[in-house]
């Protein structure tokens, strides 16, 4: 067994017992990256020097008997959407190529303060727009369970790196499912916290009212431990909730006996891959065996969620991305004559097709004369979707569904068909529209060996219960132990 096969908490135990040093663990990650990343291509940038320096500092703290946190010394990867002081951050876009931020995102600061060496920046769909990592301006990442397939998006690099055991865990962001869908595609656990639970300060914005950073790891317990470090009120984010974070690890093994779990009928319709459906059905039965009661619930406005999302998210994005104008940082069209041409050429060359598509959609949706018909109406539907969940949670403790209607698809398969790509988010994005926490936990494999994920949705700030529900299943079916078939 290699060092990189350990879970975060297993490694943390060894670091605490000082049988392994953080420097050894970090070097193991760097070595694993050298071996497998040419195939997986999860990393945009590896910060070897920075990670090793942090590891050595961690070892010094361990030696002095004063670790900074439970995970002090555990190497981690970051989606390239998190600003890291002194390390290039591009959000997967050409327009930010060469941009070295002068400050850390709040979550990055928290991780550094907790002593975690940050190994590098992980690939992503450009500005988090995409469901397959193929809209990264640099290269697509590959799914470690089948290199011809996508690891999902937009946190695909994070998911692939965790699944390929290049890092022990990672942070991603989830705007419409970008943590949960890649987690489901790569046999990892991904948690999108309640909107406002984790600070967005220093996280490059896609759609401000939907974006939420969250942990990605190989086990539920690791996910809980990682969430613990970043779930904190932040005065620099006006949408950050002033709600005290509980101990997410305390009640993990509490089981599901007596819990009422909702099965939304709108999530089990045609179009779902039969193997995914079978796997989910089996998972639901397992929950019954474990003592939970399944309750049929209805979320009637689900069918409008996709359209609502693809009005609201691009509208916000069109505004959020206006700052990339070539004036102050990032790429600039140096041959432009005049101001208008400077803007046009910089953005024409700097943005990829998916980003341009969404900027156009959003600009249109906000335009005078269309605002009421599109943006405003979408906001109203968003309220209805939120109310659907509020009603459902009066009956049940959590809602279960597939994370994705299909397992990981082939690279290139949907890249020319944006609409079918958008459909990949159909189960995940209602949760973002409602601002709720959602989690994806591995629940099986297809015959071809592709992972399947179960999605657990909960009430606002009920992350602890979601983790407990996921853990109950994970304890019975340790799919996380099944490694990706990568020759190291």
């Amino acid at each position: 067994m290699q060092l990189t096969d350990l879970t975060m908490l297993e490694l943390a135990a060894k670091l605490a017992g000082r049988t392994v040093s953080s420097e050894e663990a970090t070097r193991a990650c760097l070595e694993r990256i050298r071996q497998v990343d040419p195939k997986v291509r999860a990393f945009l940038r590896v910060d070897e020097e920075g990670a090793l320096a942090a590891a050595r500092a961690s070892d010094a703290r361990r030696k002095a008997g004063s670790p900074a946190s439970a995970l002090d010394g555990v190497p981690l990867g970051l989606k390239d959407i998190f600003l890291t002081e002194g390390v290039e951050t591009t959000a997967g876009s050409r327009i930010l190529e060469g941009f070295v931020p002068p400050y850390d995102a709040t979550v990055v600061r928290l991780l550094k303060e907790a002593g975690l060496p940050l190994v590098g920046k992980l690939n992503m769909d450009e500005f988090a727009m995409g469901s397959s990592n193929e809209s990264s301006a640099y290269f697509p990442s590959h799914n470690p369970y089948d290199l011809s397939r996508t690891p999902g998006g937009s946190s695909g690099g994070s998911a692939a790196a965790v699944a390929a055991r290049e890092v022990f865990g990672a942070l991603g962001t989830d705007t419409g499912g970008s943590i949960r869908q890649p987690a489901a595609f790569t046999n990892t656990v991904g948690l999108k916290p309640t909107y406002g639970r984790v600070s967005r300060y220093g996280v490059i914005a896609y759609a401000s009212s939907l974006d939420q950073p969250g942990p990605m790891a190989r086990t539920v317990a690791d996910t809980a431990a990682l969430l613990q470090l970043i779930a904190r009120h932040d005065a620099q984010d006006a949408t950050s909730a002033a709600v005290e974070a509980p101990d997410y690890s305390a009640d993990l093994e509490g089981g599901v006996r007596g819990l009422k779990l909702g099965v939304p009928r709108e999530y089990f319709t045609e179009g779902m891959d039969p193997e995914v459906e079978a796997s989910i059905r089996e998972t639901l039965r397992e929950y019954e065996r474990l003592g939970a009661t399944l309750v049929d619930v209805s979320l009637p406005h689900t069918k409008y969620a996709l359209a609502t999302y693809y009005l609201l998210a691009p509208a916000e994005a069109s505004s959020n991305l206006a700052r990339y104008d070539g004036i102050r940082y990032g790429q600039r069209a140096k041959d432009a004559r005049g101001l208008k041409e400077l803007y046009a050429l910089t953005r024409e060359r700097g943005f990829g097709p998916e980003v341009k598509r969404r900027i156009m959609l959003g600009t249109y949706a906000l335009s005078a004369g269309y605002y009421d018909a599109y943006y405003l109406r979408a906001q109203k539907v968003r309220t209805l979707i939120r109310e659907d969940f509020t009603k459902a949670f009066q009956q049940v403790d959590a809602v279960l569904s597939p994370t994705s209607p299909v397992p990981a698809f082939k690279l290139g398969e949907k890249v020319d068909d944006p609409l079918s790509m958008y459909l990949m988010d159909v189960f995940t994005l209602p949760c973002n529209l409602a601002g709720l926490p959602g989690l994806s936990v591995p629940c099986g494999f297809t015959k071809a060996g592709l992972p399947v994920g179960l999605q657990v949705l909960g009430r606002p700030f009920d992350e602890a219960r979601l983790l407990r529900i996921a853990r109950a299943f994970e304890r019975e079916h340790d799919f996380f132990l099944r490694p990706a078939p990568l020759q190291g």
Partner: protein
Amino acid sequence: MPVSDFQPVIGLEVHAQLITQSKIFCGCSTAFGAEPNRNTCPVCLGMPGVLPVLNQRVVEFAVRTGLALECTVKKTSVWSRKNYFYPDLPKGYQITQYDLPICEHGRLVIDTPQGEKVIRVLRIHMEEDAGKNVHDAGGGQSLVDLNRAGVPLLEIVSEPDLRDADEAVEYLKAMRDVLVYLGVNDGNLEEGSFRCDANVSVMPKGSSTYGQRCELKNLNSFRFLKQAVEYEISRQVDVIESGGKVIQETRLWDVNQGVTRSMRSKEEAHDYRYFPEPDLPPLHVSDAAIDAAAKALPELPRAKLQRFTSQYGLPAYDARILTAERPLADYFEACAAHYADAKKLSNWFLGELMRLLKEEGTPLSALRFTPAQLAELLGAVDKGTVSANAGKDVLGEMFRTGKAPSDIIAEKGLAQVSDTGAIEAVVDDILAKNAGEVEKYRAGKTQVFGFFVGQVMRAMKGKGNPTLVNELLKKKLGG
């Protein structure tokens, strides 16, 4: 039809920079005149990933202003983004308030030749300022200074209730007085911390339909406002007279040519794509906060002026000058507490004190003597301890040194001689030396009386009590 057949309709949008220490969404300083881009941080530079955090002081100021202008302060208001591209706008959007501003439906009273007039205030909203582009600075380049980006502004929009350029100027002056009184704005037009746009249209007299309006941008002096509005009214009348149509557009006042120029027409105007700012939750202002602001509201210029005429019995002219600035009014009242004759006090204020302040360029806050000391000096003049003229010298000395008036009078020997015996001796002496003039006087040429007064005063180095000097002279000459 001549201009007089048309009725101008004018509305003003006032932009007032709030006197906060820090910017509206970050902690950067708002100090004027810093080195370019010194007062900036990732937030006001619009770096990726940054988020705005509202400066609560800005809300306090907006509420205070709203209450002073008799607006309804909304308990819930909403931030919006106004989207457009410009190099001085770092985020590509301005955070402002749009359809749900913090204050609505207020009023401001102004004076017109026809008497008082109420100008309705449509709305007040908060927003961030943009930066500044500096063109052709170095080798034909354009440079951007973002020190001002994120400085808090209030925008106060009037209804189109103003009917000529003079009313517009009155309104702007009255608004400035209110904001300065409230301590929310420094009223400094030169530095651009108080400026306005004017919406101007004309319609035939008697019409009930407004004409097409033009917006005049960035008028940064009362004079330019008057000139620009007057020019624009006659321009629009000319257009209509010659059979043309006024088109809705934004125009700039060309200071050198004395004309307004088209900046952009409505057809190529921006679609700002306003939508609620997702990075800032809706703003809630509690009843308690509104009550507290209402209780802390100072007396406003107009009310103070009225009180100065009624309470102190001052003429309107005096009251207007004394209440034009809050510190002067406060100082006057502090003196009035020690000295009963308000008109006499006002004369000293409007005469000597204002002259000294102006000549020395001293702000009122730097005065070195107390209101009680000023009152003491005036009392001394009244009692004849010192002459009115010498009193002016004493005030000058108090102004420069801060010494007590009694000390100055003693040190400089300015005390008036009221000793009848001493004056009588001088009078006798002067009469003896000028027997010829005495004859003339007694022969009926009473005009020479002033000559004797002058001689006595000169002999006494100006310190003779003028009343006694007059009395004694009359007695002796008559005798």
